[in-house]
């Protein structure tokens, strides 16, 4: 669960990135976070990953109270979160298999479990047969699927997708959102940050709109996906 209570973030430059934001995303929810560039979406993600601290207010993620979280406990928090970036951020020197498996190495998972879990997740996201490929041999859609597999492999409670469709074709974008929806159906909380309003309209669901560092809309909208 994600909960922000009256959270403000002011950067050292004096810019108010978030102002008195309160937000709650329950376990098992799927939420789109939308807003223009500079609205505060990236700041929100940085807050949830404890890359930055709130200037005021409290933030709670998956049971961790972030304002009281010690530096050495940050890895434990991040292990409960899967993160997918717009630019994939795969390690170019590693194969697809290694890119996914190293997340399990981080949590010191037994080698036997890694050998079973990684192919399972690869299969889940549609990457069968790509184990030995390197990131530079993959298409944009495939790269994003690797990033999603990496985010999923340690069974996180919360999956944050930061503009996951920003670098891929629109048709492939629907496939990615479909994938995220199916992951959500299996119980993982998903927060997808995007500025693609068309995509949001098509799928619908809970939509949180941030403008100028404030939440200006937070409600459930009907999608158009099945209308066409």
């Amino acid at each position, binding site marked *: 669960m994600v909960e922000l209570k009256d959270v403000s973030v002011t950067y050292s430059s004096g810019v108010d990135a978030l102002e008195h934001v309160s937000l709650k995303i329950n376990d098992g929810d799927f939420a789109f976070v939308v807003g223009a560039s500079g609205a505060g979406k990236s700041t929100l993600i940085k807050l949830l990953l404890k890359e930055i601290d709130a200037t005021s207010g409290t933030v709670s993620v998956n049971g961790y109270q972030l304002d009281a979280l010690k530096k*050495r406990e940050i890895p434990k928090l*991040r292990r409960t979160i899967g*993160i997918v970036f717009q630019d994939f951020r795969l*390690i170019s020197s590693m194969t697809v298999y290694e890119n996914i498996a190293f997340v399990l190495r981080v*949590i010191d998972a037994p080698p036997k479990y890694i050998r079973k879990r990684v192919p399972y997740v690869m299969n889940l996201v549609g990457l069968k047969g790509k184990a030995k490929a390197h990131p530079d041999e993959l298409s944009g859609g495939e790269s994003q699927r690797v990033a999603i597999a990496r985010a999923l492999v340690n069974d996180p409670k919360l999956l944050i997708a930061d503009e996951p469709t920003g670098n891929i074709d629109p048709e492939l974008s629907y496939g990615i959102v479909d994938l995220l929806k199916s992951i959500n159906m299996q119980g993982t909380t998903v927060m997808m940050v995007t500025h693609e309003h068309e995509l949001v309209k098509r799928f619908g669901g809970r939509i949180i709109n941030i403008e100028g560092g404030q939440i200006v809309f937070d409600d459930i909208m009907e999608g158009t996906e099945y209308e066409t």
Partner: protein
Amino acid sequence: MKLSGLRYLAEQGVENIWKNRMMAFASFCVLLVSLVLVGISVLAYQNVTSMIGGVEAKNEVIVYMKDDTDEAALSQTQQTLLNLPNIAEVNFYSKDDAYLALKDRMADYDVLFESLGDDNPLVDSFRIKIQDIALMNKTVSQIEQIGTVMKISAPYEFVSFLTQLRTVLSWVMGALILAMVIVSTVIISNTTKTSVYSRREEIRIMKYVGATDSFIRIPFFVEGMITGFFAGCGALLITWIVYDAVTNILNNQATLLNIIGVGSVIPFKEIYLPITLAYLLGGAGIGAVGSAFSTEKYIDV
């Protein structure tokens, strides 16, 4: 962390050398050159010190005894001299030996010696080698206190020159070694930072998925240690070849050896163990610590 986890991280360190072979090779070269520069500077300093020591050892203080000193007193004086601090060696030189040597040196002036008949105008003496010539004045003062001593002949000027030379050389070589160490540290630090900089994105990704600082640092540590170890091996080989070649040239210079004394140039076989340990441990240590510390800037995400 489990043993399998540690093994994985160590393997990652080894694999990373190959994956980032260009940067690893650059680090290897920089470490190798730095180690060779510092190593050869230290060896040069040790040899110069040894050569000055060789020159110093050739200096003698001659203690002339009073003419009426009997054998018992001579023996007691020798013991007194040996008991003094800073005395390395005491050799008795009888007045008869001295007279024969003088006659030998002045063979062309037989007439002079004929006029003396059986009279030997010379006195018994002790030839003394002292340990630290910088303390020669103090030692000579102590010898002067012995009642049987008539006169002391000591190479004050030469000793003063050598002492000054040693001081100047110590400062110059010390400054040179320090400069080498500073330059090497800066170059090594920049090279490892560049190497880590090229992989900053990898470090950031690891941090995002919950990697601890040690999980990220251990492969860099292993990678740096292995690169540094091989740089140490290379530096050792180069130093060995260069050092052997230089010592061979010096050992063939008869005039030089006459001045500095045979054995003043330290043979490689006498110092190979500390040199090997210093190169290998120094290389591995600098490589490991340098790499691990260079991650600091990017690890704080």
